[in-house]
């Protein structure tokens, strides 16, 4: 069985990775927002099926990234509780 200090150090290191992941997700979401604006400007007024599909897919990607952030926050809270219970 590993020592409590060892396990806590691993949890801390894992959470540092999660925080870096969150930063990358936030940066991705920002770029995704810019891409949606650029696309809307480029195809203004087009009702083409492919354009609608692309816009729907980008909206879906935004939702998934937001849900990812929420899930990482939940995991961080779980990790804190887990470390406190050691």
């Amino acid at each position, binding site marked *: *069985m*590993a*020592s*409590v*200090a*060892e*396990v806590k*150090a*691993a*949890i*801390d*290191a*894992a*959470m*540092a*990775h*999660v*925080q*870096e*992941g969150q*930063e*990358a*997700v936030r*940066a*991705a*979401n920002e*770029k*995704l927002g*810019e*891409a949606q604006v*650029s*696309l809307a400007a*480029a*195809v203004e007024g087009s009702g*083409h099926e*492919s*354009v609608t*599909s*692309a*816009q729907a*897919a*980008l909206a*879906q*990607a935004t939702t*998934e*990234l937001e*849900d*990812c952030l929420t*899930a*990482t926050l*939940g*995991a*961080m809270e*779980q*990790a804190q*509780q*887990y470390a*406190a*219970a*050691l």
Partner: protein
Amino acid sequence: MSSLLHALAYRILQVGEELPIGQVASAADRLRSAHGLLAWVTQASATAAPAPSLAAAGEHLDHAAGAMLAAREALTGYLQSIGLPREAVAPPDRAWQAALAPAGPRRPRRELEPPALGNFWAEALDRLTGQSGHRPDKGARTSPELLHRCARAALAEDRGKLRRELIGAGPAVGLGLSAVTAAPLRHLAAELVSHPPRAEDLPEVRRATLPRVRPLLPAVDEVVVDELLARACHAPPPDVEVPVHPVDSAVTGAVLVAALLGATGRDADELARVVEELAEKEKERG
């Protein structure tokens, strides 16, 4: 193609090209590292609290990447439908570049904790290197700096120095190696096989690295090497009964980077150039 059509095609292609698939790959890379650590935590301890899980977050990232690829495909379809030839709009395959995306800005690592925390780290390094003796309490202050120092010691085949560098840096900086080695490992493996490494390249990469790892880390389980190389080659990971110890994974990753530097005829100082190349690729992708 009319100039108007050309301008529209260019703008739409640009939207597709600038989708942040690289950042999502970076985020996935971080979550994979965290997941590995948490898997070990769950296996190594027993508490009544529910084990933290990143499975849901990882799934959302997968879905986000899938949706962006679908959007890119739909945009390609649109361009073809308005009269652009297929070859003019075929999206370049940049998945391998996405996988190379280096980490985002590094957070400053926490200062070393009390000696009790350092003991398990030093003990694990004594076990991995098969050596013991003086345990320095000062060393590299960041994981990239530690990776450079480890590469230098490993390429000099100086097992004692490798152990001292790792012990001196401490667990907080040392465990961070797992995050800074993934991108250089894949980049150097690509240099070795002259293309982005795939599952079928795994045996060649393994042959080039394992003989360089073994003398430095005589006690390391080969499954650790296999797991890290499989990740670098986008191959299925080996079946393991118990999760790999995070110290073994972090240290072996650093030694594998050195092994690939050696196998591709580079020295430790060229590691900085490799990191710069990765940063440049990231910049090009925006």
